[in-house]
């Protein structure tokens, strides 16, 4: 079960001809796939395309009606390999993932696919996780498109344009026998907009048809001599076909006046922000009526030489707006112009920054510089552009820089991974610091305060593999952390199998929270929920043992900090040979709460005896040292300033978002911290026995309390 239910959005997938879709970009893309008559869809979740996977997972009925096969792939390589269904058969297929990380994983399959070419239209939807808010390394998918020769679509951030390009993209793919990539940036994926729908199309050719009528053609298989032929085909047939199709169907767009001394060439994705920048300069209105000629490349690979040449022919200078580096387009366009001996000067990364987001502000600066150099008359008397620098330079704001604290992401309230890292911290205090290889997933937040654990991260599921070099006898062992998502993505073989085979001496912690939580809580092989469409409940421990792991410990309640600490200590000190694998399992609290909270509320309402737990801090016992927070970082464990002139430092406090996971108490106990924490158990709808017991003991307790209170001087009068 994913983090969000998409029941309402699924209804949007049913919209028919003439209906208006309103919603998120990634859902518009999903709808466009159905309008294009896809026969199958696969992919691997990850921001910003998780919602595409989630909505399709919830859309069983719609997909069944259309006869579309949907699969949550084991990883991006598996998804890419799925596209092989379109090699021999006229099946339209699409896969989606986060890029460039997913594209990295998928590259092998993609390169093979692109070499042999496709019969049915194939589309790879890449969520380009670049710029502010990105969680990955800053790279471009563009390189993959060029190296394997797949066409790269980069539509204007406008639902209508994106949807249209997907439909056209399938045609392009079929026309040129080449897989097509659709690049959508994070903000475009999460952008709310609208478009007018068409009816969904049933696939003309279905998977069933293909299975019943198998075909093969050895010339499509990547093996010499066919592989050499493929390269020639790419150059001589597929590329020219693609160029023809893109040109004839006007997939790239021109805006503004036909003629002009200067012009701007841009990736489609840059269009909106370029228009805003031009507007600031008085060169466009809000509706895109620009006074500067624009050539918008909704297809960024291949470059359509003839169109570029035509656009540049009468211009003295042209600005290329191309986000990210290196500047592939700028290089390509320079080549085009040199070959054709066209004299327009090319500007790009000389006036715009080499890396980082091309926001309207950045583009404003770049376009202004460009025009100042090449056509200052256009700038006229320079209407005042928005500028925050006077405010930012004000001393009061300058001072704020020292005040506003960083707010990095962290583990959620009650996260089951917190006690694992608290235990690691306690072990660190006893046995010293160890080399820790971290991995991708929520658990990567361990590298930040308060835990500060983890030295490297090499890619999803590669935490264990990245300790492989540390396989010598030493005073300390290496520790690798990996999540269940990474484990099934590839870590079982690349990490655990690799360690078993090479007799690795290290410690491998597998964080099992029943979902791929970081990507939105999708089910995986070891998820414990029953999922009618998938086979879940496959044990990680069994898998580890099956691949040859001998020293395997299962901890089925990560909140048992003492046990977690002792197990880690044992793993770090045991004489046993081979990898020491600890599988630490507890359900992702975000998902658990979503699942359990309605049940609890219903039980309480229905009069069923229910115990609700919450933690608290006795503020007069707490001394305000915050050692507990340094071992936790839980959002619900905070501090508060007491109204007491004798106290300098704020005390710990737990707010009402506490879910009673138990970490605070366990840590206080295991780390011998302090007795300030208490757990409050509230019994709703108590039984008669509960009431009787409580009444009896409270009667005695009340009497004892009164007895002592009588001896105590009454201090309330001292204000």
């Amino acid at each position, binding site marked *: 079960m994913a983090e969000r239910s998409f029941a309402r959005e699924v209804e949007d997938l049913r919209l028919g001809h003439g209906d208006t879709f309103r919603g998120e970009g990634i859902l518009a893309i999903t709808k466009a796939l159905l309008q294009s008559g896809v026969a199958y869809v696969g992919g691997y979740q990850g921001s910003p395309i998780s919602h595409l996977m989630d909505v399709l997972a919830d859309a069983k009925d719609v997909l069944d009606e259309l006869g579309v096969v949907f699969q949550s792939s084991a990883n991006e390589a598996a998804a890419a390999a799925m596209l092989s269904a379109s090699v021999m058969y006229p099946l339209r297929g699409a896969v989606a993932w986060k890029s460039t990380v997913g594209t990295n994983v998928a590259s092998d399959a993609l390169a093979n696919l692109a070499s042999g070419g496709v019969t049915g239209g194939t589309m790879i939807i890449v969520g380009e996780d670049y710029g*502010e808010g990105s969680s990955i390394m800053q790279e471009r998918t563009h390189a993959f498109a060029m190296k394997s020769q797949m066409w790269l679509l980069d539509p204007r951030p406008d639902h209508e344009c994106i949807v249209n390009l997907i439909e056209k993209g399938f045609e392009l793919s079929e026309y040129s026998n080449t897989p097509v990539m659709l690049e959508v940036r994070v903000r475009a994926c999460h952008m709310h907009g609208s478009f007018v729908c068409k009816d969904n199309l049933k696939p003309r050719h279905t998977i069933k048809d293909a299975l019943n009528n198998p075909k093969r053609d050895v010339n499509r298989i990547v093996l010499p001599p066919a592989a050499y032929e493929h390269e020639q085909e790419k150059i001589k047939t597929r590329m020219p076909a693609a160029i023809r199709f893109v040109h004839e169907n006007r997939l790239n767009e021109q805006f503004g006046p036909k003629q002009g001394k200067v012009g701007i060439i841009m990736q489609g994705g840059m269009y909106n922000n370029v228009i805003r920048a031009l507007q600031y300069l*008085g060169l466009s209105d809000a*509706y895109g009526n620009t006074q500067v000629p624009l050539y918008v490349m909704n297809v960024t690979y291949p470059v359509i030489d003839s169109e570029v040449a035509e656009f540049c022919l009468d211009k003295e200078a042209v600005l290329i707006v191309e986000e990210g580096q290196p500047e592939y387009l700028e290089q390509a366009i320079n080549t085009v112009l040199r070959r054709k001996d066209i004299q327009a000067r090319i500007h790009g990364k000389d006036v715009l920054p080499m890396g980082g987001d091309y926001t309207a502000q950045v583009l404003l600066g770049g376009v202004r510089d460009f025009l100042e150099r090449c056509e200052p008359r256009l700038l006229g008397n320079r209407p005042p552009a928005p500028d925050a620098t006077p405010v930012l330079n004000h001393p*009061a704001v300058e001072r704020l820089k020292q005040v506003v604290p960083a707010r990095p992401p962290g583990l959620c309230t009650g996260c089951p991974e917190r006690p694992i890292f608290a235990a690691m911290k306690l072990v660190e205090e006893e046995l010293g610091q160890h080399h820790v290889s971290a991995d991708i997933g929520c658990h990567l937040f361990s590298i930040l305060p308060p835990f500060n654990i983890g030295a490297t991260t090499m890619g999803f599921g590669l935490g264990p593999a990245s300790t492989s070099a540390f396989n010598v006898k030493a005073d300390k062992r290496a520790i690798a952390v990996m999540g269940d998502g990474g484990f099934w993505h590839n870590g079982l073989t690349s990490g655990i199998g690799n360690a078993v085979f090479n007799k690795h001496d290290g410690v491998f912690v597998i964080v099992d929270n029943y979902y791929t939580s970081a990507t939105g809580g999708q089910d995986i092989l070891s998820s414990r929920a029953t999922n009618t469409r998938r086979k879940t409940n496959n044990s990680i421990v069994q898998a580890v043992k099956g691949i040859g792991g001998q020293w395997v410990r299962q901890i089925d309640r990560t909140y048992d900090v003492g046990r977690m600490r002792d197990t880690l200590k044992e793993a770090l000190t045991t004489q046993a040979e081979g990898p020491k694998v600890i599988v630490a399992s507890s359900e992702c609290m975000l998902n658990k709460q979503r699942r359990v909270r309605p049940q609890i509320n219903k039980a309480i309402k229905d009069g069923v005896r229910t115990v609700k737990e919450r933690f608290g801090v006795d503020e007069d016992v707490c001394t305000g*040292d915050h050692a507990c927070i340094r071992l936790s970082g839980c959002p619900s464990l905070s501090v508060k300033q007491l109204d007491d002139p004798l106290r*300098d430092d704020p005390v710990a406090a737990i707010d009402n978002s506490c879910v009673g996971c138990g970490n605070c108490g366990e840590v206080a106990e295991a780390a011998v911290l302090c007795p300030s924490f208490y757990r409050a*158990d509230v019994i709703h709808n108590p039984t008669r026995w509960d009431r009787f017991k409580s009444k009896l003991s409270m009667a005695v307790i009340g009497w004892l309390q009164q007895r002592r209170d009588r001896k105590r001087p009454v201090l309330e009068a*001292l204000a």
Partner: protein
Amino acid sequence: MRDESTRLALPAAGDATERPISIAIVAMGGQGGGVLTDWIVQLAEDQGWVAQSTSVPGVAQRTGATIYYIEAMPPLDGRKPVLALTPTPGDVDVVMAAEFMEAGRSILRGLVTPDRTTLIASDHRSFAIAEKIAPGNGIADQGAVTGAIGIAAKTEIVFDMNALAIAHGSVISAAMFGALAAAGVLPFNVESFRAVIRAGSKGANASLRTFDSALAQVQTGSFAAAAPKPAEATRPAHAPMEPGLAALVTRLKQQFPAPVQAMALAGLKKVIDFQDLAYGSEYLDLLDRLLAADRQCCGGDKAFAFTEAAAKYLANAMAYDDVIRVADLKTRAGRRARIANELELSQDSVLQTTEFMHPRMEEVIGMLPARLGRWLGGKPRLVGWLDRRVSKGRRVRTYSLPWFLALYAVGGFRGLRRATLRHAVETAHRDEWLAAATAAVRSNYQLGVEILQCRRLVKGYSDTHGRGLSKFDRTLAAIKLIERREDAADWARRLREAALKDSAGTELDGVIRTIKSFA
């Protein structure tokens, strides 16, 4: 080229035409910024406008700082406006901050400018991890944000929207939506705002109440009257002070100068609560001696800063955190009442609490009579053997009779406290510290005050307490090295502040190294 251009007397090639209304919502992941965004988009679309929102959920959604951005504008002759995907500094009409430091962050991003921006911010705090983990007080200065808002915002609407939402059983989005409606920056009537909330299914009524309340609050300008406060428990009228206590209070009022009376009274209360009236008297005796030293050093000119610091830290030192105190506090009637109140316990539910105690042999030895405790402390093997039996985590069910009786009994050791080893150790440590401060104040008044304030470093239990004590000792030793310097007090303050920065004392060691390099 460039020069020429600036001299050209050309009109603008075109006007910087009308731009869309732009709204940035700055929040933390999980605060419901998405809901608010959807509401605003829906609102604009309901009026026939074109609205676009963008966000970057990604990893930020896990409690990190994040931003949602909305642009909206009516279509023109059937043409849709081209809307930007990121806010441009200096060009944002409304910034809505769901937390006060996030409001500060939006100012730092240049999103709030005086020519344009209405800032709607909730001034409640949700502390960032860096603010929480400092061993001292790491809480950021809210005043800096308030000051910057005054500079940066064109209009400001600031009040505790979180408290208001909670009071109405809703979420902050609803309060912020109400503030937006009241701000009048969107040309839509209030009823259309309400319609959007009503269209949402879950919790619409609570949201509407919150919305209306926020709206009313902004319109009447009564931000200060924030959320309806939960009715305070009516306190019984004070019983008359018993004679012993009254005598101590009278003595305090007579002996101590006005500037220190408030602090001394708080201190007196604390030590009596910790032990008994006699202990209160001891407190005043000690304080009196310190006051005498203060007077000799013309403390009157300095508002008796030395005595005031002493009144505060002496009380803290005398009311040390021992097992007896913890047991006493945990078994008081008021404590259970407080928890029940916090939990909003209903009549027909039953409360139980569990304490997480981990007593060690050290604590047991501390409770023994001083001589016996010292003897036992000299037998490490025996202590080790005993410790293995004592030291383990114990889950104490506070309100089950056997456990309560046990805690109650420990709390009852109060009468014997003065004879314990812990008391002897604490008293010796306290006297040594007071002597050092008294000696210092005679030659360097401020240094004396600083030494008193170093007591702040001693806190926590078990290892944490040990670490605190060690920092205290190291700090005092370092002060000794420079006590004759004129700027000794500055260095003492620097040492103390460094010691409160991190738990391991790395910063403190750094300052000590610096001191050793010249002392």
